[in-house]
Every structure is written in structure tokens, then in C-alpha cells.
């Protein structure tokens, strides 16, 4: 027989947890399958799925442009409001969809968790990876808008895109894993989540420029990692002002910290998931 040398010892788990990256790697196929399932279900009707991925950010942009840009006359650092708000919405949508999805990922997959063993971390991670496809579709619209408004992105701005996506991913999956783990124990967290995301939206400069906040308070704003990310994305693409690297650095550090804290809290509470769900 092939596997005679496999030996697993199962003991009570307590104290310090290890990430067990080797095990995560062993389960990489299941990770792809979970991601594949989510994509497949989302784009089951391919045409409608893709149309929706275009329609959702475009319609939001139009509504925001009419109400916030047109009627409320929210400043946009002197650039056309549609492209201003869209460059922010792009990242915000990715972040909020990922965060919502990963926070609910354990409860949504409760049936599987109770019946099969696999590293539970696959769930919040795969739900934060798949919305990158929507991001990929939505960014095409941004390019379209840039052509329409005659904007040329800076080279740095282009290079920064994957970095900013990575930082958004770290923030969303870190915070998402944390909330997912809490959500298993306290079932009413799920009810508060949409409200929490709504609040986050308003303290993130998506519909208004970060320059609206006085310079000396900017660092407080930057504790929300999406602030530095969106600010840098906007500066890099539409060049409304130079990229504020200090702000970006604070946000990057926070994103990494969120990721580490989220993952470790998740791992620490992982063993009870199947018992309480």
C-alpha cells in the first residue's frame, strides 16, 4: 500500500497556534474548487453575470455623480466627478464585497464545516480572491472613462494597481477572517455587518477627496487602510495630486497588521467552529 508511512496524531489543541502553511498548501486544490464554485455560481449565466459586473459600478457612479457631484457639489480636486468617484468606487467595491463575503463565509458553509475537515482558512481566503474578477471587469470601465475624459495615467499609477489590490485583499481578508470567526460565536454580528460597512464607506474618501480633511488629522483617517489605498489609486491614475506615500505607508502597515491579527484570531478559534455551528 502506498500510504503506510502517513501518521497523524490528533490531540487537544491549546496554547499557541501555528499557521500550518504546509497544510494549506496541501489543500490548494480545494481552495481552487471553492473559488471555482463561487465564480461558477456567480457567472452561471455568463452574459448576465458579466453585464452585472459592469452595470453595478457604472450605475453607482452615475447616481453618485448626479447627487454628490452635481447636486451636492462635493469637490473632487478639480477633476470630473464621474472619474473621480469611479476610481475610488473600484477599490471600495472590491473591499466591501470581499469583506461581506468573507465575514459570512463560515456561516454560509456551515454544512460543509460540520461534515468535512479542511483548513477553515480556505473559506474566507477564497471568498476574498474571487471578487478580483469583478474588479478586473470594473477596471475596464475606468480605462474607458479615462479615454473619454482624456486622462493619461502615470506609469507609477499603473504599477501601483496590483500593489493596491494586494493591500485591499490583505485588509479585507484579515478583517473578514476576524469577523467570520466572531460571527460563528455571536450570530447577531451578521445583522450589524451591513451597518458597519456602511459607516466605513462614509469615513473612506470615496465620494469626497481626502483633502477635505485637514492635513494634521489625515493620519487618523489613514488608520482605515482603504483611505491610503484609494487616495494613492486616485492620485496615480487621474493625477489630481502627487501620491501621498506617507498616507499609503500607514495604510499598508495597517493592512498587514489586520491580516496577521485576523488570521491568527481565526486560527486560534478555529477548533470550535464545527462545535458551535
Amino acid at each position, binding site marked *: 500500500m502506498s500510504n503506510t508511512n*502517513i501518521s*497523524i496524531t490528533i490531540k487537544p489543541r491549546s496554547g499557541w497556534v501555528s499557521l500550518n502553511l504546509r497544510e494549506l498548501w496541501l489543500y490548494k*486544490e480545494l481552495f481552487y474548487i471553492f473559488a471555482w464554485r463561487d465564480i461558477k455560481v456567480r457567472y452561471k449565466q455568463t452574459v448576465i453575470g458579466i453585464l452585472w459586473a459592469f452595470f453595478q459600478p457604472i450605475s453607482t457612479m452615475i447616481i453618485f455623480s448626479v447627487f454628490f457631484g452635481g447636486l451636492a457639489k462635493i469637490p473632487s480636486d478639480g477633476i470630473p466627478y464621474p472619474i473621480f468617484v469611479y476610481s475610488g468606487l473600484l477599490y471600495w467595491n472590491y473591499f466591501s464585497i470581499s469583506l461581506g463575503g468573507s465575514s459570512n463565509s463560515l456561516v454560509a458553509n456551515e*454544512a460543509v464545516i460540520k461534515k*468535512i475537515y479542511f483548513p477553515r482558512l480556505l473559506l474566507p481566503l477564497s471568498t476574498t480572491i474571487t471578487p478580483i474578477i469583478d474588479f478586473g471587469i470594473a477596471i475596464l470601465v475606468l480605462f474607458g472613462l479615462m479615454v473619454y475624459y482624456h486622462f493619461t495615467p502615470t506609469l507609477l499609477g499603473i504599477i501601483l494597481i496590483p500593489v493596491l489590490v494586494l493591500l485591499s485583499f490583505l485588509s479585507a481578508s484579515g478583517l473578514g477572517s476576524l469577523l467570520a470567526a466572531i460571527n460563528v460565536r455571536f450570530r447577531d454580528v451578521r445583522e450589524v455587518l451591513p451597518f458597519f460597512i456602511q459607516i466605513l464607506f462614509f469615513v473612506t474618501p470615496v465620494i469626497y477627496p481626502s483633502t477635505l480633511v485637514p492635513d494634521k488629522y489625515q493620519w487618523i483617517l489613514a488608520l482605515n487602510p482603504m483611505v491610503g489605498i484609494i487616495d494613492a489609486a486616485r492620485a496615480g491614475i487621474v493625477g489630481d495630486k502627487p501620491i501621498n506615500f506617507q498616507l499609503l505607508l500607514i495604510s499598508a502597515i495597517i493592512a498587514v497588521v489586520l491580516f496577521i491579527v485576523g488570521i491568527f484570531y481565526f486560527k486560534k478559534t478555529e477548533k470550535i467552529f464545527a462545535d458551535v455551528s
Partner: protein
Amino acid sequence: MENPIIEVKKLSKKFILAHNRLPYETFRDTVTNLVKKPIRMLRGEKKLKKEEFWALKDVSFEIQKGEAIGLIGPNGSGKSTLLKLLSQITAPTEGEIILRGKVASLLEVGTGFHPELTGRENIFLNGAILGMTKKEIAQKFRSIAQFSGVEKFLDTPIKRYSSGMNVRLAFSVAAHMEPDILIVDEVLAVGDAEFQKKCLGKMDEVTKEAGRTVILVSHNMEAIKKLCKRCILLKEGKIVMFDQTSKVVDTYLQGAQFATQQPLRQRRDRISKGRVTMTDIAVTTLSGKTEIESGDALRFWVKYESIFTKPIQNVRMVIMIVNDDLQNILWFDNEVSEHTITEFSPNGEFLCETGPLNLVPGRYFINLNFHIDGASEDSVLMAASFEVKENLQKFEFQKSADYKVANFIAPFRYSQEK
């Protein structure tokens, strides 16, 4: 001798039930309690105690490679918990498990099936969830599809499948796993009898030919006897017996008889608990005698309560008579008869009256299952038992030495065309 493939040493599992008796809490309650705590302490009240519950306590055993072991015991005795510990789904509270081989567990049929995806897609999804690699599934794909018998519908979303088709597909995927250790919970209870047989055959083949180690939980004593040489009997989280299957099954059945002596209302080993509780059951003959003889028509009388205040619609009530090998003998299901009711009052009692039953003398058990809208609201296995005595006048048949080979004899006549 080789090291045992499974070693379990002093294994225990504790569950903590929050004060709402649910395994999870709400944030709201937790905050409320935090606020109330100082007040309660001022008043000198004790803090709300969380209930502890040992689902398994000090369980130890060893299994050799290639053995098929049955795991039996009343509901709530910890069978599923033991399987979940073995398959790493939950962590033990105390003790240790050593597994010398790759484990696959089948605790439920079709885990992770997605209704929107097609049969083909679900084979890959479910296979991956069960631990197969994509390559492995692709290689076995044809065989899986063939075994399931739903080949024609592989490109249809499974939400359009009948539940039978779903079960077939799921079983087929599971039957193609090739772990060293296979852990199977009560999954054979679903699916039609013929397909179950096919799966049992496949499992038998797998253990005998591939030298696989199997742990099987089932209420089907026949299947257990057929597949497993040795059995573990669990009761209230402890191993009562680990011995030859026939001995263990006998002990279990004696225990089951004992359980039927408990009043129905107090039975805690219910398969499902819902909005209805059956509280009492009695069996008599149609004329009201408690002494039952072969050929008597029977009257089952069940008392029940529910949370409803209005009449309950869409009730499906099933009374099943099983013999002392736990094989199903007779089935009284209001869904298969037109001369019956499906609307029940919110509480009270109902009767089920049968025609003459030519049951051969012996002991029989009654399983009860109360459904509303297709979902089980209360289900008790072996809710009661009754003894059928011999009565050769009423029993329409000649007594021959071995007329007890079966449990039920219906009127018949042999003839031959001249």
C-alpha cells in the same frame, strides 16, 4: 504484529452549552449579561452557569489494518462525535488519536453539493471536498457517472434532480474514494433499497480487496452483520462492549428492548425533535385486548402535543413495525393511503387501525415518525414493543416446523394450469 492503523487512547469530548442551551451565543446577550453581572453580584446571586456535557468519556480502542468495524449505540450515545473526532472535524478535549493512513470521512451524503451546479460540476466539487484530487476525479469520472445511473442528466443543474437522483450521485462519488481509512456515518439510511445494496456491495468489495479499514455507523443491523466482523457498542459516551458483531448486536438489541420500557414522553434518544412531541403510545387489538395474537387486527393509539394552536395541515404520519433484527416488516403511512387524514388537531391523540395481520409469533418494535410539510418533527425509533402470541385458529395457515423463517404471511394459493 504491525502497529494498529487506528489507536484511540482515553479520548474525551466535552461540549459547552451556553445558558440559552444553544451552542452559540448572541453578542447582544453577552453584552446584556456583562451589564447585569455587577447587579447580580451585588444581589449575591451566582453567575449564570454554562452547562458542560461529556459526549464521549475515556474511550480507548485499537483497530487493525483491513478491519471493518461497526459502531452502534442508541441515539445521542456519541457515535457521530467519535467519527468527527477521528476525521479531525472537531478537536478532542482530552486523549489522543493516532491514525496511520489517509482518512476520508462520509458523514453525510452529498456534502457541499450546490443546487445551481450541474451533476458533472458537483462530481468535481463533492469529490474535492471529500479529498480527491482533480486528476483522480477526472480519471474516475466515467465510472462515477456510470455507477450513479444519472449519466443522461450530468449537464442538468442538480436542483432539478429528484432526491433519489441526488443521493445516487452523491453515493457514487463517495464510493470512489480510495483512502486507507474510511469513516462512514449513518448515510445508508437514505436512498432506495436497491441502491443501498449496491453501495454495501461496493464497500464490502473495497474492504476485502483493497484491504481498506472501515468504521461504519448504522442502524441497519443486517448491514452491520454483513460487513463487520467486530463491533463497538457505545452508550452515553462510553464503550460498553467491543467484540464479535453478533454478540454486540445482541447486547444492543437487549438494551433497545429496555429503552422501550421507558415512557415515550421521557425518551431522550429521539432522532428528530421539532414542534410536535409524541408522549404516549399503546397497541391493542381492535377489540381492545392487550394480549396480541397472530392474525389480530391492531389498533395503535398515540398521544401527542405540539406548539400549535390551530389544526396542523399536511401531516405525514408513519408507523413502522420492525422485527427484533430491526428489519422493517410493516409500514403504515398516511401518505400511501387514501382512507386517512392529513390534518391533525394541535394536540390530543390519534388512532391507526389495521386489517388482520398475520404476524408470526415473536417480538416486534414500533418506530414513529411525525412529519409536517415533509420535514420530520418528531421521530422515535423503537418507541414501544409488543409480543405476538401464537393463535392457530386465527392464523390462517398450517403450522409447519419452520414457518418462522419470515415475519409476515399473507394469503396465497399455489396452482398449476392443467
